[in-house]
């Protein structure tokens, strides 16, 4: 049977990709954490954000202290949010590059999700029909 045609993907390659992923996890490089920084438009406020350590640095230009306290707080919160989003995006990209480079588990996931969604309903329906057919055959054989 041609599994590639039936499943819409090469199962041998996907299984090999999974093996590769699990093998890679044993030897994951430690590496330094991704740090992102965000700066206000006027350059008075700057936030450094580390993926695992959180906010690592906050620099306030003396001119920022002249700002309204509410506006300053809002600016700092905005910058933390920006830096965090940036750090997460960068880290996610780095993780995908390390773990998912050329890996079918990443490239084919939409396809597999669609196939599984379709297969579950179709399989349930076919199994029900098959069971009903076999029951009819059994009824025919009843002496």
């Amino acid at each position, binding site marked *: *049977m041609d*599994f590639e045609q*039936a*499943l819409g993907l090469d*199962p*041998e390659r*996907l*299984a090999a990709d*999974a*093996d590769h*992923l*699990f093998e890679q*996890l044993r030897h994951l490089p430690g590496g330094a954490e*991704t740090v992102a920084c965000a700066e206000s438009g006027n350059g008075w406020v700057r936030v450094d954000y580390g*993926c*695992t350590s959180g906010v690592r640095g906050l620099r306030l230009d003396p001119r920022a202290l002249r700002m309204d306290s509410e506006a300053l707080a809002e600016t700092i919160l905005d910058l933390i949010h920006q830096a*965090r989003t940036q*750090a*997460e995006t960068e*880290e*996610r990209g780095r*993780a*995908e590059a390390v*773990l*998912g480079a050329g*890996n079918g*588990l*990443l490239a*084919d*996931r939409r396809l*597999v*999700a669609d*196939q*599984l969604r379709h*297969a*579950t309903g179709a*399989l*349930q329906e*076919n*199994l*029900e029909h*098959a*069971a009903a*057919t*076999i*029951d009819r*055959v*059994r009824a025919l*054989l*009843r*002496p």
Partner: protein
Amino acid sequence: MNFAHLAQRSLVMGTGAAVTLSALGVPAGWPFVGKMYIHQYDPQAFFDGARTWLGVHDDAAATRRNLVLLVDEVAVTSWRSEDGRAFQRRVDASLSELRGIEIRAMVTALVLYTVGAALTAMVMFQFLVAATMAMVALWVLTAAVTPLSLAGARILAMQCLIKLFEGYQAVESLLNTLLHGCAAALGAAVVVDVGIETARGDFSGVHDLAAATFAQGPMLVWGTANRVERDLTAHGLSGRHPAGRPWPSTRANTPLPPGLPQLAGAKAFNDVATGGQTVTGRYVPEQAADGSYSFPWE
């Protein structure tokens, strides 16, 4: 790649995904592993069996046609004596018997094809489930880049796997219903003939059935033991005490003592690697030339 290999790859991939997800704080992958361990099939055997039974049907049909032709040549319409009528009755009974064999062979082939097709679909469905589990594991690995995003990813992955398991269980339940129906149909194909013969006062069919069942005794005992071992291993893999029949217990669904799931995992690995159950697999009853099995005292 054949069916058995695909099923084996699914189990390996599903186990790897469950281990990874568990390490990431998502234990919802484990229940799949026990199920995947149970659903290791090679549907090719059923297709081969179905082909053999189709051959039996064709042979019986050819014999019946030949017999009709032969009798047509011999029993001319002028043969109206008592001997002629007795001969015709005998021939009619033989033709009816051959027709019965044809029908039963066709039913058996149909049932075997149905089982083979259902198991094929199950093996492929299981591969897609295992691939999805590995994809969820990779997604958690890449999505959980901060402690906060890890917490969110865990919840999403858990919800996804619980939903997936519900679908898996629904398919498994329908498969079990179909397989029970198929077993009953195969049983009926044998019993209907014996029943008709017995109703006519011919008990040879009952004796044959009893003798055949007795001859298969060691295989039936071994099959039951093999199944119990398989189910216990699957429960060990799931990490929880079995629930429901035939395992009634007040500890149902509570976690197993530490060490047992690991032991079950090592055993399951050996089972899959060797292609047979670790304990009962070594004691498959030897089959005699006539298809029966020898008893231990023989």
